[in-house]
């Protein structure tokens, strides 16, 4: 109630604005090129008199001689002009190139970069569009210290973003995205070309204003607005070709035959003949040159009361898998209305995006790796190739003479057929928009009210030609056979046909979600002499996850696509429909922030946020408080440095904050019952009547926020006429109560895994950024910059018996990861290889795993108990890079611009699951072939053709890489027409080179479940390969 009362007082308070008669001064504000600057603020110092320049830069203001006009315009240096006798003046403003005057969005407000006490990084529009990508996050990679972005080059994929280390395993790991003040699920629906800038709130002292969802950092996106002035048209277009960056050479037919026969000799079995029918390069067949095409049209401008920005973007990408397409159309419209003498500013944002996707099975990459080169994509008769082998003749074929036997090399099907038959379409529509009203109650006090909403539609259709797939599975199968089998399987009484014998199946999935949020806050900003005070007080409400999912599956629709709907499915099958209405989530918050600085020297910021989330209904523990504070000291504004020639800016800052993560997994049922024949029920009495029982499966654990606390210190500086700028940050961040999936002890009462808060995760790190920019002459300018971040991640204080959560499954019963105190999150855990068994004698006389044989890898008996088991597994660090770095180089000569961006990571390991999980007679890489063990003494490092599939550090490789992300050369045509203000052509090579020792396709592996550290993050199994893209583009402005 107190809060309400405060609002009331604030709202009713009316601050009178006095106006006194003076001389009327008229003037014009322009930039250095004589272009008028509309919207400039002109204030008579020490008074309330102010004016704003109009469309042509003109203004009028009352001032008497001797008074000082303070002229300010964003992006330009402030000017102070003493009024003389002239009543007509022209004011020329110089552009401000110092980054420190840049305005940074801090959440419910903005701040000058120089005034920050927290750690916030910003990326400007030009840097975002330079790296052609679907989402802006991809473009951030390598540009900001402290942010690790793991990219995927799969069309339509979203990269994983880890800000200042990974602090959670099972809860939401994504940062909070705020677009124009409104929280959104992701920024996939926003065209990078519409983005003005991205600000990343990295530390807790800045992010805690977003409280319960800020634990993974906050990414604030500001989209473009119109600027007062004439209409500006722009057209940007590029086209590029994509191919696999780091292809892996597989064994050819002869190598495969050798390897096969060596394996067969070791374990006994038929061998292959030297003369075979085919030599297929499966990756060559599977991969194609993909393409990327992007066109943006935008118009923007502004009049006295309205600014407008409108754009349309079309993005189209075809991946390196055949027919894997992703298309997106985006319409953006941002308008600003200034009413009542600019007292009321209304901003309307609208973003509409449509996507259209034809996914193809990524498992094809995994599958192609395993295909024997002796198997053709198709046989001569046009039937799909399969791994049939004539075991009598040793020829890989499905054809057999009398008495000859046919078998299969391995169970995998034909990946080209998988790609061919996959018929899937996904459409999404995202309507995202909002409305912001800013009302200046007085000069110092502003009220803001903002409403935002997102409506999302998703529909997916999968058509599966089951009969065709069945036929493709074996070149000898016929349609008649299919029908015969189908007839035999049909239930004679009911006529119901088992679904596995349907001709085709059709599934449709339809999801609709809605979310809205509302913020209201007051901003008070005033300079009392040298004391600058800024206060924000407000509240917000949000409701998400409103929506439903509808799923239907049926069988045997007519073959023509026009009839593919549930309406036309056959009644002879058990069809499926599912429907769920999601439980909405609501959030409610109060927040306040106070900022104070004295004379731009001493800064103090404090925030408090109180958040409630409906997620914690079970424990009725809705609320939590998230405080923070920050301190800063700008030494360069002190007298002793003020006149320094070398030090232009020097500031030290530090802060502490507390953040939360409400996107946590929850325990569902504690009490178990069963209506089936499980061990819950019993029979009693002479007739053995059924009694239903109940038992406790997992403990009652009401989960709550994951809480993160972080402190950090930093330093910003600019030296040598601001040509050298840089910053250093240190942070120490701890997730206090990470949620684990606890496997109950065998001897405990609980039977089911359950979630509980059970460990701390610490992330400590350093960040450095340095940039040098200089103009050598009027024609020559250049810049060179780099950043480096180091992060140490460690699981600490695990509750007794709560460690041991395993993960990183290779889908063959082997796991690669385990949680343990003192290790990083997602730490690798497996056998350590100490050589290769050379002789059977060695196997017999040493500790060995069951089935060990000469040529197999030899695992170290760590505890020397003579047995190789789980206790001999060892930790080997994490897939998460310990450090990453970016470099950039920019060069401008007259109208030519040139830039290079590079990005690298190190200190991590990735697992070559493709190499490891090879079984039976699957293919190998040429390298595996060349280095293999071929008999006693041949090698003590690499296994032979007969080997096991245990997970071991043999397959764990350095994940370090350095990649040139971007090389761009552009040429801007000199003024050639008064109608064209800019015309630039450019050529970009995206990811042209990568330096890595990793033997697979890509060391950048997001893994399942969006980077869950206990899934396949860092394990290459079905990962999409890195691609390189060569792009030609054009920018046109009218």
């Amino acid at each position, binding site marked *: 109630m107190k809060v309400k009362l405060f609002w009331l007082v604030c709202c009713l308070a009316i601050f009178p604005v006095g106006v006194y008669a003076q001389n009327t001064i008229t003037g014009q504000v322009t930039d250095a090129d004589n272009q008028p600057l509309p919207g400039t603020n002109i204030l008579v110092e020490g008074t309330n008199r102010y004016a704003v320049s109009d469309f042509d830069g003109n203004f009028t203001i009352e001032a008497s001689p001797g008074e000082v006009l303070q002229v300010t315009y964003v992006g330009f240096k402030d000017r102070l002009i003493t009024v003389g006798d002239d009543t007509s003046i022209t004011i020329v403003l110089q552009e401000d190139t110092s980054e420190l005057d840049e305005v940074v969005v801090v959440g419910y407000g903005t701040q000058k970069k120089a005034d920050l006490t927290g750690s916030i990084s910003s990326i400007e529009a030009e840097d975002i569009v330079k790296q052609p990508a679907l989402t802006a996050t991809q473009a951030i990679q390598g540009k900001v210290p402290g942010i690790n972005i793991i990219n995927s080059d799969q069309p339509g994929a979203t990269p994983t973003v880890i800000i200042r280390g990974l602090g959670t395993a099972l809860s939401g790991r994504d940062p909070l995205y705020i677009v124009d003040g409104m929280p959104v699920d992701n920024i996939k629906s926003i065209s990078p070309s519409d983005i003005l800038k991205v600000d990343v709130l990295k530390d807790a002292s800045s992010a805690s204003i977003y409280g319960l969802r800020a634990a993974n950092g906050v990414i604030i996106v500001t989209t473009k607005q119109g600027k007062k002035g004439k209409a500006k048209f722009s057209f940007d277009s590029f086209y590029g070709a994509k191919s696999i960056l780091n292809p892996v050479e597989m064994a050819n037919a002869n190598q495969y035959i050798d390897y096969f026969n060596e394996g067969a000799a070791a374990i006994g079995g038929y061998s292959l003949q030297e003369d075979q029918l085919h030599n297929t390069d499966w990756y060559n067949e599977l991969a194609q040159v993909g393409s990327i095409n992007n066109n943006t049209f935008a118009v923007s401008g502004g009049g006295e009361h309205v600014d407008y920005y409108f754009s349309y973007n079309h993005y189209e990408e075809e991946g390196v898998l055949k027919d894997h397409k992703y298309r997106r159309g985006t319409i953006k419209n941002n308008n600003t209305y200034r009413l009542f003498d600019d007292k009321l500013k209304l901003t309307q944002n609208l973003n509409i995006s449509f996507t259209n996707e034809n996914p193809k099975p990524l498992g094809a990459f995994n599958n192609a790796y395993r295909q024997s080169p002796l198997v053709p994509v198709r046989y001569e008769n046009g039937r799909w190739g399969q791994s049939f082998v004539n075991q009598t003749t040793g020829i890989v074929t499905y054809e057999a003479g009398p008495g000859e036997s046919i078998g299969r090399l391995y169970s995998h099907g034909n990946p080209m057929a998988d790609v061919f038959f996959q018929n899937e379409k996904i459409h999404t529509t995202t309507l995202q928009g909002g409305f912001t009203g800013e*009302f200046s109650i007085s000069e110092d006090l502003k009220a803001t009210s903002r409403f935002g909403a997102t409506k999302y539609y998703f529909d997916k259709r999968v058509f599966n030609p089951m009969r065709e797939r069945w036929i493709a599975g074996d070149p000898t199968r016929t349609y008649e056979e299919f029908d015969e089998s189908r007839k035999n399987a049909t239930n004679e009484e009911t006529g119901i046909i088992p679904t596995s014998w349907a001709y085709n199946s059709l599934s449709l999935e339809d999801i609709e979600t809605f979310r809205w949020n509302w913020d209201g806050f007051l901003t008070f900003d005033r300079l009392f002499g040298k004391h600058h005070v800024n206060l924000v007080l407000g509240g917000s409400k949000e409701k998400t996850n409103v929506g439903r999912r509808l799923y239907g599956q049926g069988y045997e629709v007519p073959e023509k696509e026009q009839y593919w709907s549930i309406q036309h499915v056959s009644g002879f099958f058990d069809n499926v429909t599912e429907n769920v209405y999601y439980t909405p989530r609501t959030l409610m918050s109060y927040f306040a922030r106070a900022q104070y600085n004295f004379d731009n020297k001493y800064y103090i910021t404090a925030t408090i946020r109180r958040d409630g989330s409906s997620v914690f209904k079970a424990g009725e523990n809705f609320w939590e408080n998230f405080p923070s504070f920050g301190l800063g000291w700008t030494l360069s504004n002190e007298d002793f440095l003020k006149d320094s020639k070398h030090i232009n800016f020097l500031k030290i800052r530090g802060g502490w904050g507390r953040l939360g993560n409400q996107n946590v997994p929850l325990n569902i049922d504690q009490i178990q019952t069963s209506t089936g024949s499980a061990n819950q029920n019993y029979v009693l009495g002479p007739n053995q009547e059924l009694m239903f029982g109940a038992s406790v499966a997992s403990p009652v654990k009401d989960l709550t926020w994951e809480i993160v606390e972080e402190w950090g210190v930093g330093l910003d500086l600019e030296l040598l006429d601001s040509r050298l700028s840089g910053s250093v940050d240190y942070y120490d961040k701890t997730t206090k109560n990470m949620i684990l999936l606890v496997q109950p002890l065998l001897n405990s009462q609980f039977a089911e895994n359950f979630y509980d808060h059970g460990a701390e995760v610490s992330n400590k790190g350093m960040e450095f950024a340095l940039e040098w920019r200089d103009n050598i002459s009027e024609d020559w300018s250049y810049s060179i910059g780099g950043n480096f971040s180091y992060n140490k991640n460690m699981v600490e204080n695990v509750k007794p018996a709560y460690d041991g959560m395993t993960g990183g499954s290779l889908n063959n019963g082997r796991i690669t990861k385990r949680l343990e105190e003192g290790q990083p999150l997602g730490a690798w855990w497996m056998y350590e290889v100490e050589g290769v068994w050379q002789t059977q004698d060695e196997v017999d006389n040493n500790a060995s795993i069951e089935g060990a044989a000469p040529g197999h890898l030899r695992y170290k008996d760590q505890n020397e108990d003579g047995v190789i088991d789980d206790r001999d597994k060892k930790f080997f660090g994490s897939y998460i890079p310990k450090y990453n770095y970016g470099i950039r180089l920019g060069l401008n000569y007259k109208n030519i611009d040139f830039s290079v961006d590079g990005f690298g990571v190190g200190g991590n390991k990735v697992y070559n699951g493709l190499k490891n999980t090879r079984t039976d007679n699957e293919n190998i890489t040429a390298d595996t072939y060349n280095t293999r063990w071929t008999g006693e003494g041949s090698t003590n490092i690499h296994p032979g053709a007969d080997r096991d599939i245990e997970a071991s550090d043999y397959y764990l490789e350095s994940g370090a890489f350095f990649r040139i992300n971007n090389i761009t050369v552009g040429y801007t045509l000199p003024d050639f027409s008064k109608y064209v203000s800019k015309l630039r052509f450019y050529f970009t090579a995206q990811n042209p080179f990568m330096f890595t020792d990793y033997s697979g396709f890509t060391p950048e592996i997001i893994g399942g479940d969006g980077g869950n550290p206990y899934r396949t993050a860092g394990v290459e199994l079905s990962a999409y390969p890195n691609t390189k893209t060569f792009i030609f583009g054009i920018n046109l402005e009218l």
Partner: protein
Amino acid sequence: MEQLTLKKIYIFLFSTFLFYGCSEDFLDVDSREKIEAGDSEEVFEPDDFVTSTYGMLTDWDYAFSWLGVTEIISDNADKGSTPTSTGTDKHFLDGLTHTSTTPSIAAMWERWYKSIGRASYAIEYAEEYGLTDEDYKNRLIGEAKFLRALNYFWLVRMFGDVSLQHTDLLTRAPEEEVYDFIEQDLLDAIATLPNKSEYASGDLGRATKGAAQALLAKVYLYKKQWEDALNYAGMVMTSGEYSLEPNYEDIWRVYSENGVESIFEVQARGEQIAHGVNQYSQTQAPRGTGGWGWGFNVPSEDLLNAFNEEGDTIRRDATIIFRGETLWDGREVSGSVENPMYNEKAYSSANLGDADGDKNVRILRLAEVLLIHAEAANELGDSNTALTSLNQVRARVKLPEVTTTDQGQLRELIWKERRLELAFEHDRWFDLIRTGQAGEVMRAHGKPFEDGKHELFPVPNDQINQTPEMTQNPGW
């Protein structure tokens, strides 16, 4: 005019702030995906948790893993089935080459601890639920305590020192403490449980005072507390609740389920939902052409010889299905089934190999109590009492009376009687260990029994991985 519009704006702003409100109602969102506890019809009664504790006895583990660690491992039984069907690890147990990673051992370890957990929860729930009928409440608690004691007993005789779940999961409590806990649970159960005849008819099959007394007598037998064993066995014998089934083979028929000799057995109905011990009959039924099961846990040649040497045809024929024989119910066992002999005590006439078997598994019956009585009396030097009890058991199967009063000889004879009477009732291995015969017998049987090691099973590796400070048994 402008003032008026400004006022409108103020009013608008003010009303949007009102919209904000302080109420927690906004956060109290109705669940749509999951039915909230209050809206579900389910109310759990204390009896539900006792039921699930009984229900645990019907788990699949008792149909397979249990066979391995109680019978296949002993001289009474072989793995059975086809030579290549290992039954996961039954070949290891049969050959005494099992290790701490043998799955059957971990399965029983875990199963018993989960059962103990259910029993403890049932006790806690019954105590706190607010039942007004004290007798009913105490009876439910008594039933759960009996079941808890039974599970602890199975654990302790297999592993020695084991953790007491209510105290410390990370380390093992000394065997003695575990036995003390079992003893206390059983004494409590004896104090509160009704006699078999005092139960309502619909409660037939629940744990009784007699069951608790019989189990306690057995516990004392293992602890060699002969007087206590004699006492408690005597209480059961003189309770008037039990008598021997006149025909030995009738004990395993459907019509004598919970019959006069039965003290405690696992209830099974043989229909979907509430099966008996899941697949217990199926895993042990004849395998191969003309068979209807998996054929595991088959009588050994050694056991057959033991019956024959004693001239014990009644118990032999009730215990063993022979290849090619016609069973009591007229079923012909094909001459081409895989193994020469199968376990007849697991045979279900009605359900054949169905997963949902109707076989009540007999856990405690009067004949065993008589043998406990005999053994305890003999150890106390009272051979006359011992002979009386022993000969009751022999008389039923038409074997001549034993007359020796030599303590040593009589001891051997009682042990032999236990073997023949209780074959395939999951006790043989532990009798061998308890009586110190295991090493000699198993080595003679051709199995690599190591003294000082094989008396106890290894603590499962999975457990030690979870709780590394837990000690392993000697030799493992």
